[in-house]
């Protein structure tokens, strides 16, 4: 696959980077509104339930905070790779690897106190995700393998090896008496369970928030971040200016993998408490949508994750209307499709406003 240079033009800095994503999300909401209406159900009630289900109670906020933190971290994973111009489709695999390490350390290692146990698990899961992502970086730097294909392959390798081998084989829980293995890994120790603020709010939320801010600061205010952005803008110019492009590519992919690995750890420590036999994956792929809808900006990803975290937590309430609880994912997919179609949005804006913000450049590009 050839180098996809257009992406840099599409998602490069722009004063109006929020406009297209916001319009895309609104249009996706509108399309889905009509879809519900067409099936003879009440879309107003549906949307009320969806948003209410995500914000209405402390319990709802707990679920929202969890989903937001996972989506933020996988979104950051994708956004960070974008900063050096790489498309990380591999957040899913990195998440799976991180989750597995978290589940394993959660029961195989018992230091007796959460103050030691949790940080060690989080760091190990982040390192595992970073390691898995570094394979793609190595393939890119040393072997010239396009990261889009390699990360897709690495996703499925991780998923199959973990879920069809490790979790059902060597790492499967064994019942105490017999040698019969049970589905999923063993339950994690109590010291590994993520504490909840106010009884419901998952500790993952402050963690994800902190990561978003930290990565924003990294990219905007540090020389290392400057180098990452320079590589994303033109790796050729970055190399000529003395930046070690290979080293920075490893850094960006490793950080990307670390974010996804952390997301996996939070899912295990905060929700499943084991690596279950049937793991509801897909969050890694969601990260692509979150990052692009958030303009590939760390804080943009945070905003997008918060919005979709709310409606996805509220999705369960849609079942009262016989609408599948994954309906918010359709909204998210449509919003991504509309972001992909942003040339059309900009074109229409040009027609409406006479001139689009930054529009001419984008259409000419």
């Amino acid at each position, binding site marked *: *696959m*050839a180098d*996809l*240079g*257009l*992406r840099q033009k*599409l998602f490069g800095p722009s004063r109006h980077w929020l406009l297209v994503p916001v319009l895309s999300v609104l249009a996706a909401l509108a399309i889905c509104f009509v*879809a519900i209406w067409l*099936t003879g159900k009440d879309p107003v009630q549906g949307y009320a339930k969806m948003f209410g289900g995500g914000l209405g109670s402390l319990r709802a906020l707990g679920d929202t905070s969890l989903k937001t933190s996972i989506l933020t971290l996988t979104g950051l994973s994708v956004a960070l790779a974008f900063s050096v111009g790489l*498309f990380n*489709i591999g957040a899913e695999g990195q998440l799976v690897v991180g989750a597995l390490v978290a589940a394993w350390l959660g029961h195989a290692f018992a230091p007796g106190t959460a103050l030691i146990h949790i940080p060690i698990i989080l760091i190990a899961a982040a390192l595992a995700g970073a390691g898995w992502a570094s394979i793609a970086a190595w*393939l890119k730097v040393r*072997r010239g*393998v*396009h990261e*889009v*294909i*390699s990360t*897709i*392959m*690495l996703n*499925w*390798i991780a998923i*199959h*090896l*973990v*879920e*069809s*081998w*490790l979790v*059902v*084989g060597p790492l499967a829980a064994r019942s105490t008496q017999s040698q019969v293995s049970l589905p999923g890994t063993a339950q994690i120790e109590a010291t590994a369970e993520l504490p909840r603020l106010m009884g419901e709010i998952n500790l993952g939320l402050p963690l994800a928030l902190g990561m978003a801010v930290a990565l924003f600061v990294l990219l905007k205010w540090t020389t290392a971040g400057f180098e990452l952005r320079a590589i994303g803008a033109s790796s050729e110019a970055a190399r000529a200016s003395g930046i070690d492009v290979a080293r920075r590519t490893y850094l960006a992919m490793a950080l990307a993998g670390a974010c996804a690995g952390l997301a996996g750890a939070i899912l295990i420590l905060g929700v499943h408490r084991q690596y279950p036999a049937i793991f509801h994956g897909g969050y890694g*792929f969601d990260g*692509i*949508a979150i990052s*692009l809808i958030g303009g590939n900006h760390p804080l943009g990803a945070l905003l997008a994750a918060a919005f979709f975290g709310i409606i996805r937590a509220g999705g369960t309430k849609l079942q009262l209307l*016989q*609408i*599948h609880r*994954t*309906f918010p*994912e*359709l*909204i*998210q*997919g*449509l919003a*991504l*499709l509309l*972001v*992909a*179609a*942003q*040339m*059309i949005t900009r*074109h229409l804006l040009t027609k409406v406003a006479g001139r689009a913000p930054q529009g001419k450049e984008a259409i000419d590009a």
Partner: protein
Amino acid sequence: MLELIEAILASTLDFAPSIVLAALGGVISERSGVVNLGLEGMMRLGAFFAAAATLATGSPWIGLGAGMLAGAVGALLHGWLCIRWRSDQVVSGIALNLVALGGVTFLVEALYGSTDTERTATIGKLVLPGLDSVPLLRALSGHSWLAWIALAAPIVMHLVLYRTALGLRVLAVGEKPQAAATLGVSVAGIRYGCVLASGLLAGLGGASLSVSTLDQFNNHMPAGQGFIALAAMVFGKWTPLGAFGASAFFAAANALRISLASSIPWIKDVIPSGFLLALPYLLTLLLLAGFVGKARAPAADGVPYDPEVR
């Protein structure tokens, strides 16, 4: 041993069509220069609409047609974004997958009140008389018509790509669209055609899951087969026969997994099924890294064509 080989051959013929057809869809699209990561989504559309149309009309053949049409609609959307609007092809493909995932779930729930459809009629099986008693060859008998379509399609595509003027134009557009354009070849026309063909094939591949391999649509479909097809396309070095070979090999690995599990239970401890499932992706990765041969994508694959850039 002979029985095991027969069992693997037979179940390869049952599993392969969906992957072969989708992989060919990937080949034709990317040969013309449009990256297609939306195969999974197009297969899902094909699988659902084939089942729905079969349920509505009672004819699985009409179902196949509807599945192809649904795949084609998804492909045309992808093509329109990528060709007319020069959108990012990777993003567009992924978005299509997500929309197909959520959209079909919503539709199944809305139409059937469940995550699966009811049972449908299926495509007939072709029994080859006289082969029933021939060892080995008898494994060829009794498979869906789709198995034979999937055997013929790669040969047809190979002939079109490498033996016709149209094929020459497709190859030229995928390698260097500017050169083709200066000779009066319509780059957009060729690309739309190829993306459309890709949707028809992936839709057919998806349809084969719901009205041939199984007799209903269930919400897991196509369960990552679009990505196996993508791996097969790469592993087959972007050629129809190569993609066919890779698809058949991956399907055989899957057949091996299932046959082994039933015929030699202890083998699961020696070769965990996860290894066999991961094998297609691992091999593809090794190929790309240059450890086993070399693969090269068409030069203009993924690059939007801008007539003003020379």
